[in-house]
């Protein structure tokens, strides 16, 4: 610690000595008589209630403090192990979400052209009548499958699926094909299920295509810090950006975007070539080591070095270190894999290295799902013989998840009326206008519809282009079904939500809305229950769980964490970890990931990459009054070298343009990004003027990104857009 006194000037000395003198004479005790003038603060008269956060998908346990019927604070539930008893900035900003002055207040019917923003307030009965009538008309004119249903991640989204099915449509898309289905595909097709990473007990982690200290995933983000700080875990990060994860890593490499597979295959090359794997484990538990051995011969560290821009000796050393720490080491699987057209194969290369490390179902490795014990609540949907046989997005890609669909493929099919027409759309709490690439195409898709009903808490851009907008309740105003969650080694648990405040305005829960619509379509029998009855059925196999949920806000079902597959076969065709995928071979998909170099960035252009941070959940937080104070706008990260070449200074307004669209935002000139890459945060610049903080603020990724998708799953490919950046003259 520097001796600050030595630097004091004479004036300072006078001040300082004065202070010391004052202190010596009693300082704070000077006005001692007044010290008790302020009584000790009283404990506020708040009531507390449990819930689960909804500001992103993690569902962290929380305790809400309510004073006079008003939410005043959201705190973490210390008994909630999955989140390690924390609540992030977004969780804390839940109050601004609930009390956002821009919240939808009553049903609105579009009056002008789509997107024109002219609305008429209508009563609920009229709104539900209209929704049902229009849905019936679509079914009459275009068959039941001529109606599309989309729901985001929410505890009530299952009721959108139920409505769709009993109405007769199997055209249901989730948000997942704009996020992570290719990653799920790759790991499912290697291990037989989508694993949970046991970050807490890992000794060596390679983080590629993920940014865990900013894009928070519970408990991985917290466990990563504990593993590093308390267990000596080493973290190696590959990212074209110097993220906070990179900044806190032991090693960071600004990898050339799109080359992660080359890196992973080179790791496999070294691990196999130098026989650094557990031969017995590989022989017993995996399928295809011979084919893999042959396949990765070509992918030397030298080859990968040229592709990735990472020195060959570092690649080889990392492979050796990773193998030395096995099986308590991993290539972190990641989550959002909507990046390239071969993203399933890229993530397969991640999965294969994990297979070689023998970390499956073992401490510090990749863990299998544990049963939480919630029961499904079955129903018998009617059969509609007149329907087309399959989903509108079927058969374009070979390995789409039936229950998630592909938004990108669906959009193309709707626009082409191929193989049939879709003219109605029901959307709950998902915002493809803000998250799907090539917004103009999404607008076209919306223009194609006879009628669109959107249920949401706010006037999202998707709602902005709808016909009927119905205000839903926030997560703190409603009764939700139970939900099972798993958090790596931390827990397999159940959460539920109960109303903590009176619902604001005329908002209603989605459940009541679909129940109302179903009743009007003579489908009321499928919603003939209350939420409490539904929960009771869910919890039928867990005696005492409801009382524990009321007491602790979370119910744990203790079960085996490791060795779940001891004595059991893996859920793959070979009943082993599939290094070589047999089904892919049968289907004509590369059974081992074949590396194709990413397209070269054209001269004077950049590859646009996107992401989020701990203060942003895509479009759903851009209008949050508290979070807005942290991230008032998004900026374009631009390396100083091209910035100088283009005459762009930090803070300059720039135009970013791609083949499909252009946006303007401020440049952030920083050496935290490669010179061939630019980056912006998601969620900004809504078209909806009823999002005062998000509208006209920063740039929309959806407008600029090109609409490519993964050829195996139909997952959006968000990192394949090249842009030019020019300084805008004010």
């Amino acid at each position: 610690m520097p001796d600050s006194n030595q630097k004091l000037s004479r004036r300072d000395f006078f001040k300082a000595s004065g202070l010391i003198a004052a202190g010596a004479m009693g300082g704070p005790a000077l006005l001692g008589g007044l010290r008790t003038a302020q009584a000790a603060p009283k404990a506020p008269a708040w009531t507390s209630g449990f819930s689960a956060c909804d500001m992103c998908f993690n569902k962290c346990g929380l305790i809400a403090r309510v004073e006079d019927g008003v939410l005043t604070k959201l705190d973490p539930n210390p008994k909630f192990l999955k989140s390690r008893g924390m609540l992030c900035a977004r969780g804390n900003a839940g109050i601004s979400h609930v009390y956002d002055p821009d919240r939808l207040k009553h049903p609105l019917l579009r009056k002008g052209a789509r997107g024109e923003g002219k609305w008429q307030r209508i009563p609920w009965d009229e709104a539900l009548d209209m929704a049902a009538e229009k849905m019936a008309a679509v079914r009459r004119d275009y068959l039941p499958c001529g109606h599309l249903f989309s729901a985001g991640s929410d505890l009530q989204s299952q009721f959108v699926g139920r409505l769709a099915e009993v109405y007769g449509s199997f055209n249901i898309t989730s948000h997942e094909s704009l996020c992570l289905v290719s990653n799920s595909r790759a790991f499912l097709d290697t291990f037989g299920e989508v694993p949970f990473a046991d970050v807490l007990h890992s000794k060596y982690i390679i983080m590629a295509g993920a940014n865990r200290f900013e894009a928070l995933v519970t408990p991985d983000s917290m466990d990563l810090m504990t593993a590093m700080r308390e267990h000596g875990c080493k973290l190696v990060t590959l990212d074209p950006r110097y993220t906070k994860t990179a900044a806190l890593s032991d090693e960071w490499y600004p990898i050339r975007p799109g080359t992660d597979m080359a890196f992973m295959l080179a790791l496999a090359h070294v691990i196999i070539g130098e026989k650094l794997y557990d031969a017995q484990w590989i022989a017993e538990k995996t399928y295809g080591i011979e084919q893999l051995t042959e396949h990765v011969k070509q992918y030397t560290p030298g080859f990968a070095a040229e592709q990735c821009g990472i020195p060959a000796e570092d690649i080889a050393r990392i492979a050796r270190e990773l193998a030395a720490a096995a099986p308590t080491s991993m290539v972190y699987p990641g989550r959002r894999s909507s990046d390239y057209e071969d993203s399933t194969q890229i993530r397969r290369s991640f999965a294969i290295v994990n297979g070689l490390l023998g970390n499956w179902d073992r401490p510090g490795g990749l863990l299998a799902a544990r049963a939480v014990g919630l029961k499904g609540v079955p129903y018998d949907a009617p059969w509609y013989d007149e329907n087309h046989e399959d989903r509108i997005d079927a058969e374009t890609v070979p390995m789409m998840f039936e229950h998630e669909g592909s938004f990108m493929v669906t959009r193309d099919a709707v626009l082409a009326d191929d193989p049939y027409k879709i003219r109605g759309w029901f959307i709950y709490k998902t915002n493809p206008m803000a998250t799907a690439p090539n917004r103009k195409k999404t607008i076209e898709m919306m223009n194609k519809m006879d009628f669109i009903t959107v249920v949401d808490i706010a006037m999202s851009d998707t709602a902005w282009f709808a016909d009927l907008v119905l205000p839903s309740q926030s997560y703190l105003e409603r009764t939700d079904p139970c939900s099972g969650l798993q958090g790596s080694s931390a827990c397999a648990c159940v959460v539920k939500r109960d109303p903590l405040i009176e619902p604001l305005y005329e908002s209603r829960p989605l459940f009541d809305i679909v129940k109302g619509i179903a009743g009007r379509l003579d489908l009321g029998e499928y919603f003939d229950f209350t939420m409490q009855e539904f929960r009771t059925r869910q919890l039928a196999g867990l005696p005492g769980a409801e009382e524990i949920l009321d007491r602790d806000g979370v119910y744990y079902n203790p079960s085996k964490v490791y060795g779940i597959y001891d004595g059991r076969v893996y859920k793959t065709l070979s009943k082993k970890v599939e290094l070589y995928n047999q089904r892919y071979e049968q289907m004509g998909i590369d059974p081992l990931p074949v590396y194709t170099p990413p397209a070269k960035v054209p001269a004077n252009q950049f590859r646009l990459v996107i992401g989020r941070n701990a203060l942003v959940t895509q479009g759903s937080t851009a209008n949050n009054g508290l979070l807005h104070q942290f991230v008032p706008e998004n900026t374009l990260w631009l390396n100083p070298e091209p910035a100088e070449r283009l005459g762009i200074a930090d803070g300059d307004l720039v135009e970013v343009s791609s083949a499909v669209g252009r946006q303007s935002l401020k440049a952030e000139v920083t050496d935290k990004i490669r010179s061939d890459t630019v980056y912006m945060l998601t969620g900004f610049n809504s078209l909806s003027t009823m999002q005062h903080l998000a509208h006209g603020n920063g740039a929309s990724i959806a407008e600029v990104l090109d609409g490519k998708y993964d050829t195996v799953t139909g997952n959006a490919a968000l990192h394949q857009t090249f842009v030019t950046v020019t300084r805008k003259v004010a």
Partner: protein
Amino acid sequence: MQRKLMLLAASALVMFMTVSMAFALGDGNGRKGKFLYRKNCRTCHNGATAKDLSPADMTQAEWKATFADMSKIKCSGDWTVSEEDVNDIFTYLHDYAKDSPSPAKCS
């Protein structure tokens, strides 16, 4: 291997002998199979009368083996569905089996 061959042989025999099973299992309408399964099978396979069943309870190979010799399915004597319906039900169970590309989720 031998067991597999025997199983294959047995199933071939059944197929051959059962005139009504003139078509091969599979390639049915899985979506309709789901409806038929719920309507015809889940009435008993509800966790009370008979055990709860999900396509993800077995592998695709296991479903194939099960349906190859339906006389071994205890309740098959009570079935009132057509062969085409059985095939649709099989297709549903097979296509969402635990090692299928889209393993069934609950309900």
